């Protein structure tokens, strides 16, 4: 009898402890990315064993499904304690302007993160005097992938400008390669566009596009679409039916010479396809963008009205710490946002990206949420469709400017 009472007491006591200590983390990291998140959660459990961590994952690449679920939860007044979001305008333009997030500047000061993270990154996650999320990783968007052995076979070098790219493309076409550039579905086409735009506008021009100083209808910005159209002529015609992995496969199998994709492609080739970075496959900044690191970053923020605020702050501390980032990123195939992370934990590609991260000029990616709010990004897909259908640079530029005006880009 006494044993029973004791057992019941234990259960009640434990559950009471658990009641006071919960933490719900909302993300879209499942599948290949799941283990990285789990490792981070394990680390959290080591530090705070009494906190019950709820891993609320909604699957779907780039968070397409998760973001819709998050919106219904937030609108319904049930915010998760912390949610994954692309650092930059995707968070700011949606949630910060709507006054739904807490300012984390205090946390950044306390933890010394203002020095730990590069300034270009801090700028991207700042808005109206506040800092709004803690970046856990960095991916690079402007990378060109190729297979060195194949290029030797064809007798071409990785092009360093888009003009060079186009002439290389002609050479390859003459050698019977129908589509020298491998391309996938709609968003990867936008991904290619941002690499072209960055090359033609330069880092300053690119930034000006997003703060409203450079109009999409400016001749310089219209020229981006012209070049983009020529680059598309080098790509496969069935792009819309391919995932980004299938586009990478084309390069690996020698059906195409180049692919412009973020550096998750390195993770795919190294981990899934078991290719050695640097020898079996190689990379270069996308043409015309050497010295510029176009970044995107997954980050976590603190929504107003989070039920377990203290636990969430502890979580954010872990996410931004050296230990947290070096646990998470080697598994995720990204690099740490901090400047002081340990290169020995990363593979050849990761080490090269870390070097660039410390030395390059940092700008944000459009497609992956750093520089434009969701309301612009989602309609940019329509601009892309207008261009692909009409092949008219001016029409696409006009549409992009109309949307920019409509959503008040740069205001």
């Amino acid at each position, binding site marked *: 009898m006494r044993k029973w009472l004791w057992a019941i007491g234990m259960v009640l006591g434990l559950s009471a402890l658990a009641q006071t200590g919960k933490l719900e983390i909302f993300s879209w990291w499942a599948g290949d990315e799941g283990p990285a998140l789990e490792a981070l959660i394990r680390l959290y459990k080591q530090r705070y064993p009494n906190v019950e961590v709820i891993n609320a994952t909604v699957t779907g690449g780039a968070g397409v499904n998760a*973001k819709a679920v998050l919106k219904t939860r937030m609108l319904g007044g049930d915010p998760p304690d912390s949610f994954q979001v692309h650092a930059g305008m995707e968070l700011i333009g*949606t*949630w910060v302007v709507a006054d739904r997030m807490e300012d984390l500047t205090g946390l950044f000061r306390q933890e010394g993160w203002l020095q730990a993270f590069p300034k270009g990154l801090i700028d991207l996650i700042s808005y109206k005097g506040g800092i709004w999320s803690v970046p856990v990783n960095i991916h690079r968007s402007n990378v060109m992938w190729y297979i060195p052995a194949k290029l030797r076979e064809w007798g071409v070098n990785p092009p360093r400008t888009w003009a060079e790219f186009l002439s290389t493309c002609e050479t390859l076409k003459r050698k019977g390669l129908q589509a020298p550039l491998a391309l996938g579905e*709609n968003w990867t086409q936008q991904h290619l566009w941002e690499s072209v735009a960055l090359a033609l506008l330069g880092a300053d021009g690119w930034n000006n596009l997003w703060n409203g100083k450079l109009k999409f209808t400016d001749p310089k910005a219209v020229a981006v679409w012209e070049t983009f159209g020529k680059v598309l002529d080098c790509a496969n015609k069935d792009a819309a*039916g391919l995932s980004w992995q299938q586009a990478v496969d084309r390069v690996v199998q020698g059906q195409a010479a180049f692919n412009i994709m973020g550096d998750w492609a390195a993770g795919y080739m190294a981990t899934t396809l078991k290719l050695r970075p640097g020898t079996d496959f190689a990379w270069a900044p996308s043409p015309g963008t050497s010295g510029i690191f176009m970044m995107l970053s997954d980050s976590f923020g603190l929504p107003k009205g989070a039920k377990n605020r203290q636990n969430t702050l502890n979580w954010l501390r872990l996410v931004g710490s050296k230990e947290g980032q070096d646990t998470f990123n080697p598994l995720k195939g990204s690099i740490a946002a901090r400047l002081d992370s340990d290169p020995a934990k990363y593979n050849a590609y990761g080490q090269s990206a870390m070097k660039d991260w410390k030395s390059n000029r940092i700008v944000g990616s459009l497609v992956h949420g750093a520089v434009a709010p*969701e309301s612009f990004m989602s309609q940019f897909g*329509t601009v892309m*469709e*207008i261009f*692909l259908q009409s092949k008219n640079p001016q029409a696409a530029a006009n549409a992009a400017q109309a949307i920019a005006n409509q959503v008040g880009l740069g205001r």
Partner: protein
Amino acid sequence: MRDRITALLVLLPSLVAVGIFVYGFIGQNLWVSFTDWGKNPAQALALRPELQFVGLENYRELFTGFVETRFRQSVINLVFFTLFFMAGSLGLGLLLAVALDQGPRGEGFFRTVFLFPMALSFVVTGTIWRWLLQPQGGVNVLPTLLGLPPLAFPWLTTREQVLVFDWNRLPLYTAWVVGLVLLYVAWRAHREGEKRRRFWALLSGGVLLLWALTVGSRVHLLPYPEPHGFSLALVGVILAAVWQMSGYTMALYLAGLRGIPVEVLEAAKVDGASPWQTYRHVILPLLAPITLSAMIVLGHIALKIFDLIFAMAGLDYAPTDVPAIYMYLLAFRGNQFAKGAAIGILLLLLVAGVVIPYLASQLRKEVRR
């Protein structure tokens, strides 16, 4: 009297629930579609968004706004999809039913086989057909079985369009088509001696055609031409949808065929009708009510189609876009809630346009009984 009160009490909860959760929410959605929710990002997801009444602005923008060209293509896609999907399902279903009605050996087996796709969800159908329509596999390699070269048709990825027309001409074409249909109705009414119907059909048809002949050709929705047409990437989607639903129409038609009294068929035979004439003049007219029911069911499925295209081509590919998908993109990715609500209302009107006349005619029949 007590019975009535009991009946009312029993019905009351569901009446209230339906009133709030169906009609109340439709009303709320209608209200949202008249506001500017989402235009200002600072208000889009605020705790208590301040909404401004903008009237029909969202609708105006969808049909004539500069950036909503994708919505307009999605409407055109929906119209073509609905037409070909209904025609395909009805035609193939009728053919299968007639074939099975001859009583071939293993009829039960074939019936199950043809009806089986209907048991799948559109997501499964979409996944299967997505594989079958791969550029370098599935349907495209079929000819190689006969020693022919493989097809190279990019089923779901082509950007080619046929029957291309200028969006600015849409009101004109609509006026012509509706006007001519009304004239036909008037002619029918004339032959049936229904004077009132003849008058109204003649009047409204005449007005429409007059408008088309005078002002209509000068109406411009947009300040520039905007070509839209039947997007060939939809052919694959239509194939999959017909594959899924033709078994259903087959089952309906088969039941109808079996329900035709033998005496009628024998009478036709005695009168010397050939099999073809029997079908043309006896069987098909008797099947007309079934065709109507099937059209209603297929029609509202077509208008609400979302999952099949989601599974086959994804959300982002404009050539296979339909309004339901675009509504999802606008509202849940772009935070343009008011515009999304407007598309929702337009879809509701379209579906209502299909279903309400049917319900009304059914109701009238029941009253007559």
